[in-house]
C-alpha cells in the first residue's frame, strides 16, 4: 500500500526503531534466556520450588504491588493538591517530587536506614512501640514506595491540569454530591493516567535493588528480595541466576500486559471510532 504522507521516512524510522529495540532490549534478554537454558529442567524446578526462592519472589512482587498501590493513593493526593491549590512554596514542592529519581538509590537506602534503624531518628521512637521498619519487609516496602513515588504524581498531574472545571460544575448542577462528582466523573477520567503511573511505579519497585538492600537487612526467608538472591546466585552458579532472572522477567511481563489491557479498557472512551 503506497500513500503519500505529510512527513516522509516511515520505513527508515520504523527500521531504526526495531533495530534499536533489538540491540538494546531484546539481545540482552535473549542472552539471559540462553544462559538460563544451561540449567537442566529438574535443577530449574528444584531452584524455583525452594522455599527461599519462593519467599524472595513473593516479597519482590507482593511488596512492589503494595508499594505501587500506596503510591497511587498518595500520588493522586499530592497531584491534586499541586494542581488545585495555590500556596506558597508550591513550585519548590513541585521540584522536590522528582528527587527520588535523581538520588542514587544507594544513598536513598542508606538515608532511610539511618532514619529507621533502631538507633535512628525515627527508629528510636518507633521500635519501643513495636514498629520495626529497618531490616524487615516493612523496610522493603518503604524503600520501594520511595523510589516509585514520582511516577503517579507526574502521570496524573497533566491530566488533572487539562481537566475542565466545567465538567465538575455540570455534575453539580445535575445533582451530584461532591463525592459522586469525584467517584463518577473525576476518577474515571484519571483512571488511564493512574494506571500508567501504577505500572511504572510497580516496574520500578520490582527492579529496585540499591535502596532496598540497605534497609532490608536481607534476612533469607524474611526480608530478602529476588534481585539480591540473583546477585548471590551469580557467585555460585551463573545459570541459576539467569533462570531466576528469566522468571522475574516473565512475571513482570505478564503483570505489565494485564495493566496495559486494564488501561485500554479504562480509556476506551478516548478512542475515536472510524
Amino acid at each position, binding site marked *: 500500500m503506497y500513500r503519500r504522507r505529510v512527513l516522509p521516512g516511515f520505513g527508515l524510522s520504523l527500521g531504526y526503531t526495531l533495530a534499536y529495540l533489538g540491540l538494546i532490549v531484546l539481545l540482552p534478554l535473549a542472552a539471559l534466556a540462553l544462559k538460563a537454558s544451561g540449567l537442566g529442567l529438574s535443577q530449574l524446578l528444584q531452584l524455583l520450588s525452594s522455599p527461599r526462592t519462593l519467599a524472595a519472589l513473593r516479597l519482590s512482587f507482593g511488596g512492589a504491588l503494595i508499594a505501587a498501590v500506596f503510591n497511587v493513593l498518595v500520588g493522586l493526593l499530592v497531584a491534586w493538591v499541586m494542581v488545585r491549590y495555590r500556596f506558597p512554596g508550591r513550585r519548590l514542592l513541585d521540584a522536590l517530587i522528582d528527587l527520588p529519581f535523581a538520588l542514587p538509590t544507594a544513598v536513598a537506602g542508606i538515608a532511610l536506614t539511618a532514619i529507621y534503624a533502631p538507633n535512628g531518628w525515627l527508629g528510636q521512637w518507633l521500635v519501643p512501640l513495636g514498629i520495626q521498619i529497618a531490616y524487615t519487609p516493612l523496610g522493603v516496602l518503604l524503600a520501594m514506595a520511595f523510589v516509585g513515588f514520582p511516577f503517579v504524581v507526574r502521570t496524573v498531574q497533566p491530566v488533572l491540569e487539562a481537566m475542565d472545571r466545567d465538567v465538575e460544575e455540570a455534575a453539580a448542577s445535575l*445533582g451530584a454530591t461532591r463525592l459522586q462528582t469525584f467517584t463518577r466523573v473525576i476518577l474515571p477520567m484519571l483512571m488511564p493516567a493512574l494506571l500508567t503511573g501504577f505500572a511504572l511505579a510497580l516496574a520500578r519497585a520490582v527492579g529496585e535493588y540499591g535502596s532496598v538492600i540497605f534497609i532490608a537487612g536481607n534476612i533469607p526467608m524474611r526480608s530478602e528480595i529476588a534481585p539480591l538472591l540473583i546477585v548471590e546466585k551469580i557467585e555460585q552458579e551463573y545459570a541459576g541466576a539467569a533462570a531466576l532472572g528469566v522468571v522475574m522477567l516473565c512475571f513482570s511481563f505478564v503483570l505489565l500486559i494485564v495493566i496495559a489491557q486494564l488501561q485500554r479498557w479504562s480509556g476506551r*472512551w478516548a478512542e475515536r471510532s472510524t
Partner: protein
Amino acid sequence: MTLLLSHLSRHFTDAAALDDVSLAIAPGEFLALLGSSGSGKTTLLRILAGLDYPQSGSVTRGGHDLLSMNARERKVGLVFQHYALFRHLTVTENIAFGLRVRPRHARPSRTEITDRVEKLLKRVQLEGYGGRYPAQLSGGQRQRVALARALAVEPDLLLLDEPFGALDAQVRIALRRWLRNLHEELGLTTVFVTHDQEEALELADRVAVMNRGRIEQVGSPEAIYQQPATPFVCEFIGKVNKFELQREQDRMICGALDFGADLWAKRYDRAVAYIRPEHLALATDTGWKARLRHIYLAGSVAHLELALDTSEQLIEVDVASEDLLRLGLQQGAELYVQARTATVFPLANDTGEAKSEDRRVLRPHQQPY
C-alpha cells in the same frame, strides 16, 4: 414562578462583574443576556446556577430564596459553551447521569430511566447514537446531548452559556431555530448568554443588554433595536452612524448639517445622534450632499459608504440592491442623503455624560408619508 433578581453585586479583586443588577424573569420566558466579554453576563448566569455567589442582593423564585440553595438543589439545567460532557460516559450514560446520582428513594427505576433517555434522544434527534462516546460526535450533536442531559432532570430553569459559540455558522443557525421550537414546545423558562446580537434578537422573547456589570436595557428585540435606550445600546446593536451635535440657538446642528429644532428648551449645549444605515435614504435634489466612496454589495442589501461634503465624515447607508441597480450609481457619484430618524442623547453640560432619560427622536428630513 417568577424569578426575581434584585440589586445583585459581585466584585472580583480587580473589577466589578455585576453592579446593582435587578431583573424579573417571567415563567416560560426566553431571555437573552447580551453583552461583550467582561460585561458580567456569564457571572449573572453562574449566580443563577449556583456556581457563583453575589456579595449583595437576592435571588428568589416564587418567593423562595435561591441563594441559600447550592447548585444541586436548584433544579437548574445548565448547558456550557464547550458542552462539558462526561467524556468517559456514553451518550445514554451522560443523559442518565442526573437521574442516576439521585438518592435511592428519589431515583427512578432502571426501566424508567431507559425510557426517559430514549424519549430525550428522540427529542434531540439523536436516536441510535446512545452507545457512542462524546469523542465520536460532531459539535452540534454534542451540544444536543448536553441539552438532553440538562433536560433529563426536569429542571425549572434552563441556563445556556453561549450554547452555540463553538459551532460552525450553519450548524449554529439550524440549532438556533431548533432550540426556539423546543422552547415553544416545552415552555421552560430559559436564560441564555450570548455575545452574538443576531442570535439574541432572533431567539429571545426579551433581551437584556449588559455593559460593565450593569443592565443597559431590557426589552423585546424590536424595542432594543428600534428604541435603544442608551448610547451603548445604540452602538452595540446593529450598525449606526454617530454624529456629534451642537446647539445653535434653537437648532441642533453637526457642522453644516441641520438635525432639527432643540427639544430640551436650551438645557443642553451638546448631544450625540445615532442614525441607522437603513434610516438614511438617497435623494437626488435635497438633503445632505455627499459623495459615494464605496459600494459593498452583500446579497439583497448594498452597504454604501459616503463622504459627507461638509464635514468629510464617512457615513454608511443601506439600500436594497435592486434600487442600486435602478439608480445606476457609480463610485464617485454625487448625491443627497436624507435622515429619516435619528436617536439623540443630550450630554450634560458639566460632565459630558449622556442623559439617557432625556433621549429624543429627531427627524431631520421629515417626509410626509
